[in-house]
């Protein structure tokens, strides 16, 4: 665990800025002129600290490419609302959006599905032609009634509108307001039609705004406030991540009063304005609300990183620094307790992984936050990129990457293929749509949205699992079978 928060990244052998720039050139040649111009600003050879050498982001996807991106609805349903366990999330519109996003994000929850939690279920208004022609508002009101009757323990309903809703002029906000009153139940409208914005990112923002407008401040915690009350923001509990993170924060002596939104409870979220500090893991999807809470309630927020022992230790110290000596002592105790355990993991896997090259293309925080964990295992990240990032994400990324590495935005599949091949990577970490493309090419792959059905990867609990998975992917004996001897 060398590079402990080193300001300047050590160079990676064989990675040169010039070569990477040439690779970019070569890649851009794949495109027709117009598209080339559009794509050109979205990829760059990294040169931390050098101004201008940056990557454009949050722009429209070039039509006709294989983009990994989703839509605003995906950001709202899959990321922000879906993980809130005690609400019925209505995919309002045709059946498909809810169907495809049903059970596919791995935001785990604790409870009994259909009783007190509902996030493994798919509620849809299943629009038919007549709903489009005559409007779906009445149906929506009826849906809310039915949900209230069939799921009496539901703590609320979110209405996530799909494309047709916004296009035909339905007013879900009015319906939500009325239903909310009639049913004495929070019914929260979220105008997250898929055509809005350029990616799922706008869905996060719209959802944050819905929380701001309809949720935050509507509850207070039953217990007396303490100085150690915090909220864990931007942890969606993929494969149990939030539980792993919470364990450490508990051990640190902090009270995690709400999680946004992994295994989330809407009333706890509604009372978050009472906490003393917001800890943000996924900055991208939740920075909006953190800022709102800072502005309106004066709650400070900070980012942290619970991937891999190096980053965990640094984050623990940084978090603890916001509190008193007791918490700071706890941080050191925790680090001292887990360091040998994590070292044992490193000792086991690093010899099998040292010098392996990985390329990442994911969403949210992962293209930068996971780097330390890979590096703890001896891997080198030669390229990283985001599906739906903004400038502030890239600003946080350059310094995490070595000079000359590739940084990119909203990559298309053909770009990723080219880079993985040319940069001779040993592992690609990206999404399910990309997985089998690389595996067919004989390149080990891990799904890094869903942790490839494994996890958690967060915290001390997650690192051994992460290490095992990376080793397993890269060193699976099946790779030795790819080439037939005949």
């Amino acid at each position, binding site marked *: 665990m060398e590079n402990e928060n080193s300001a300047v990244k050590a160079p990676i052998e064989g990675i040169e800025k010039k070569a990477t720039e040439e690779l970019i050139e070569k890649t851009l040649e794949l495109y*027709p002129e117009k*598209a080339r111009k559009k794509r050109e600003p979205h990829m760059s050879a990294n040169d931390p600290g050098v101004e201008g050498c940056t990557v454009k982001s949050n722009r429209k996807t070039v039509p006709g490419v294989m983009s990994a991106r989703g*839509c605003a609805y995906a950001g709202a349903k899959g990321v922000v609302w879906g993980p809130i366990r005690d609400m019925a999330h209505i995919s309002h519109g045709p059946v498909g959006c809810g169907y495809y996003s049903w059970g596919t994000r791995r935001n785990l929850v604790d409870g009994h599905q259909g009783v007190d939690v509902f996030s493994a279920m798919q509620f849809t208004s299943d629009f038919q032609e007549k709903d489009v022609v005559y409007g779906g508002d009445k149906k929506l009101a009826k849906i809310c009634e039915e949900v209230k009757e069939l799921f009496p323990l539901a703590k609320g309903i979110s209405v996530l509108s799909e494309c047709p809703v916004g296009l035909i002029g339905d007013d879900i906000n009015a319906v939500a307001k009325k239903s909310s009153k009639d049913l004495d139940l929070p019914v929260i409208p979220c105008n997250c039609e898929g055509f809005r914005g350029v990616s799922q990112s706008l869905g996060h923002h719209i959802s944050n705004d819905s929380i701001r407008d309809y949720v935050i401040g509507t509850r207070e915690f039953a217990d007396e406030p303490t100085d150690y009350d915090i909220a864990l923001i931007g942890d969606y509990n993929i494969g149990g991540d939030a539980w792993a993170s919470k364990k450490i924060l508990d051990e640190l002596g902090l009270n995690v009063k709400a999680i946004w939104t992994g295994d989330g409870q809407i009333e706890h979220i509604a009372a978050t304005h009472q906490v003393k500090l917001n800890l943000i893991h996924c900055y991208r999807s939740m920075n909006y609300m953190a800022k709102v809470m800072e502005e309106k309630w004066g709650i400070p927020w900070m980012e942290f990183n619970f991937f891999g022992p190096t980053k965990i230790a640094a984050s623990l110290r940084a978090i603890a620094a916001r509190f008193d000596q007791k918490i700071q002592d706890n941080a050191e105790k925790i680090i001292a307790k887990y360091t040998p355990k994590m070292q044992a993991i490193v000792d086991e896997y690093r010899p099998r992984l040292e010098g392996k090259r990985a390329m990442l293309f994911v969403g949210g925080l992962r293209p930068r936050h996971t780097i330390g964990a890979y590096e703890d295992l001896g891997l080198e990240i030669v390229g990283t990129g985001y599906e739906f990032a903004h400038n502030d994400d890239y600003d946080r990324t350059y310094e995490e990457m070595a000079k000359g590495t590739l940084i990119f935005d909203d990559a298309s599949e053909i770009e990723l293929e080219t880079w993985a091949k040319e940069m001779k990577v040993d592992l690609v970490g990206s999404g399910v749509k990309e997985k089998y*493309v690389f595996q067919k090419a004989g390149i080990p792959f891990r799904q890094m949205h869903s942790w490839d059905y494994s996890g958690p990867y967060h915290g001390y609990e997650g690192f051994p699992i992460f290490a095992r998975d990376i080793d397993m992917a890269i060193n699976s004996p099946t790779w030795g079978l790819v080439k037939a001897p005949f």
Partner: protein
Amino acid sequence: MSEECAVKKVTDITPEEVARVEEWINTEEYCEKNLAREAVVINPAHACQPLGAELVAHGFEGTLPFVHGSQGCASYYRSALTRHFREPAAAVADSMTEDGAVFGGQNNLHEGLENALKLYKPKMMAIFTSCMPEIIGDDLNAFIINARNAGIVPQDYPIPYANTPSFNGTHINGYDSMLKSVVSYLATDKKVEGKDNGKLNLIPGFDANTGNYREYKRICEEFGIPVNLLADISETFDSPLDGTYRTYPGGTPLEDAADSLNAHATLSMQLHATKETIKWFKSETEAPVEVMPSPIGVANTDAFLMKLSELFGKEVPASLKAERGRLVDAMTDAHQYLHNKKFAIWGDPDFLAGMISFLLEMGAKPYHVICSRGNKKVAKYLQALLDESVYGEGCKLWMNKDLWHLRSLVMTDPVDGLIGSTHGKFIARDANIPHIRLGFPILDRVNLHRVPYIGYQGTMNILTSVANTMLEEVDRTSDDAFFEMMR
């Protein structure tokens, strides 16, 4: 809202409340309430049209499925197919956004066509729509003509398209529309009066089992009948891993598809997923065009083989007769394990029809039949199948119901096994009923999409998994005293 409400305290749901509701949702009372709902659909067993359209597009040689609409839609379809097959699903979208609502999607479509052609070098692009262009009324036909005239794509470059509104029908309708579009696009002007190319056009219908496609081909091969499978996804979604990624690893050769109006005959294996396509074939060719029940079970497979025999004047080959005999042998050997066992099944109408037929042949009961979407004609068709057998007595057909209905049904009127997609797994767990995964999608097991379930061999595979699941259940639920070596 935040202004209106007094600030209440956070309340936790008590264990007692949870226990009460947990029990309640398993009651008859709840079942009634649940069956009475009119508006909300919970855990549906159907997807939307474009998914079927994309499946078709993947089934043609060198063809790039092209979604006219938001890129999010395309990502969803691709993910859904990729998760089921554990294979790449190469498709693009023209990434319409808000301004599309104002200006229409022509610019996106044109830019998308230009880029996709250069980047992925498809031999054909098959366009289908997601919601936005359907709502705003994009004129695809005009857009494509304009693209050709503008030189964005060559004049003769094949671009079939289909309107596949998600708010109308299900994935099987999208399948039908896209298939009709592709075939009519390629074949219409290739018809030669009086020509008979000696081939069979075989249309599997919406079928996400690559093994089934291979099995159709094998059966025709045994007969010596040259087959033109429309649309053939068997290589697309089951291609070798040999170190080289291929964007288009398979599909029906475009030339063969283009020749399909000169075929000796056309057979569709799904009544409800190919209506428009079949109507088109019937209007365009004098050669026989027929629809068969999906060949699941002995009688349905018999009918299929006899139809092949009749159409091509060939005897059923000895190899298939022997297969039939082996299947009947296995069914006889296993009948005691399925006799009077009750099953809940869900899925598309044609899948259900096949499964009903097979279960009744085994003396088992297709006890709850959940047809997620279907009109009265579908209902009548399925009900007639149940009425044909004494084992259909007491079995119930549930039209336009979903898996949350099914949960109530099996909680109050239980079955011995669930047969259907992965989406039933929560019911299986809650009801403690074994779950045989069959159909689409399968998201939590490997290779099952490679195991055919049509034809005699496929029926044998269903039998093996259903019977052994029942046997496993006997072992699992037996007291020590009744836990035995033999079954």
